[in-house]
Each structure stands twice: as structure tokens, then as C-alpha cells.
């Protein structure tokens, strides 16, 4: 069964460093998403991406964040200058259509020290 994959599974970084989280969505899906879950809190929407551009973003997704689809398979989330409060589990998701079920990857646990 096709699945969303994410790398790395864990990332530890120093405050102020840049990190890139990688995702390979399900191959025939057209919509891509990033969510995050801070420990003990809800899963929160960050951004959605369709047709090589951002289609929606939340207030969390500020100028420190960017997304890219550098090739036909990868979808990345970059945090330019990490802060302590960026420590969270980051989930990538994809869907075939915009209002259809979103399928989630296993997540990347980011720890900012």
C-alpha cells in the first residue's frame, strides 16, 4: 500500500540553525501539507501546497518557514533560523484531491536546543 515517508525520523539542532525536513508524498497525489504537533498539544496545520505553489498557510507559517517541491517526488519544509518553540513533531501529508482524505507520514521529531 502506498504511503507517505519522511526523513529524518529525528533531528536535533541548535537554536538559530537551519533545518530541512523531507517528505515523499504518495506518488499520484497532487496536494501536499505540513502539520506539526507540539508535545501535549493539538496537531496544527502549517501549510498546503498545490501546483507548485502555496495554496493556504496558517499564522504559524511565518517568514522563517518555506516549502519546496524540488523534484517530482520530494516535498520539503525548511525552517531558516530555528527557535526553541519550533521543537515539535512535524507531519507531512498528501491527498489526491483537495477535499479528499489526507494521508500522513510517520513524522519527524525536531528538537531545538
Amino acid at each position, binding site marked *: 500500500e502506498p504511503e507517505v515517508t519522511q526523513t529524518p525520523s529525528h533531528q536535533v539542532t541548535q537554536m538559530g540553525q537551519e533545518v530541512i525536513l523531507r517528505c515523499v508524498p504518495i506518488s499520484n497525489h497532487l496536494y501536499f501539507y505540513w502539520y506539526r504537533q507540539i508535545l501535549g498539544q493539538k*496537531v496544527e*496545520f502549517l501549510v498546503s501546497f498545490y501546483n507548485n505553489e502555496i495554496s493556504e498557510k496558517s499564522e504559524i507559517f511565518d517568514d522563517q518557514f518555506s516549502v519546496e517541491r524540488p523534484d517530482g517526488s520530494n516535498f520539503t519544509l525548511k525552517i531558516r533560523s530555528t527557535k526553541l518553540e519550533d521543537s515539535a513533531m512535524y507531519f507531512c501529508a498528501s*491527498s489526491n484531491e483537495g477535499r479528499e482524505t489526507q494521508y500522513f507520514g510517520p513524522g519527524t521529531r525536531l528538537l531545538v536546543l
Partner: protein
Amino acid sequence: DQQVKQNSPSLSVQEGRISILNCDYTNSMFDYFLWYKKYPAEGPTFLISISSIKDKNEDGRFTVFLNKSAKHLSLHIVPSQPGDSAVYFCAASAYGNNRLAFGKGNQVVVIP
């Protein structure tokens, strides 16, 4: 942000009995609802969904009920199995956008 609320954070149920999880929402623009299951160290796994044109959707042991007037939905799992022990998230999206709003989740423990 309390658009999707899941109260009663944990539930213990005997194997073979019914598990009932509840979810309330405040945004009247929500028209598509999903339930996800999550095991530790894994991503949310899709279980079942329902659109606002229906009031019930069933898939095997899982049934979702939607009461639009009360802005309430519930997930019934019957019979419950030990493998159902996980955190269950209710999520919703509104017409015109694709973002999912999640509840905080309910921990379900099925006792063999």
C-alpha cells in the same frame, strides 16, 4: 483555537464491547469530518470520514455519526479489539479550504 473539541481524554473498554468517542465543533462552515488513529511514534492513520450531507457512515467495525444541528459527531467501534488501543483524533475541514482542524485526541485502551 477550540474549533474542534474532544472531551474525556481517555477511555478504557473491555475487549468485545463498544467504544464511543465524541467530538464537538464550533465552526458552522465545517462540512467534512474525519477520524484518525495514532499509535506512539507514528503518524495519524485515516479511519473513516463523513461529509455534512450524510448523518452516518459505516466501514466495518467503525461507524461515524454526525449531528449537524448539535455540531457533534461520534465514532463507534464495535467490537473493540486490543489493537484498537491508540489515540483517536477528530478532524474537520471547511468548504473552500483544505486545512484540517484537529481535536486534542482521546486515548483508548482496550482491555483483553
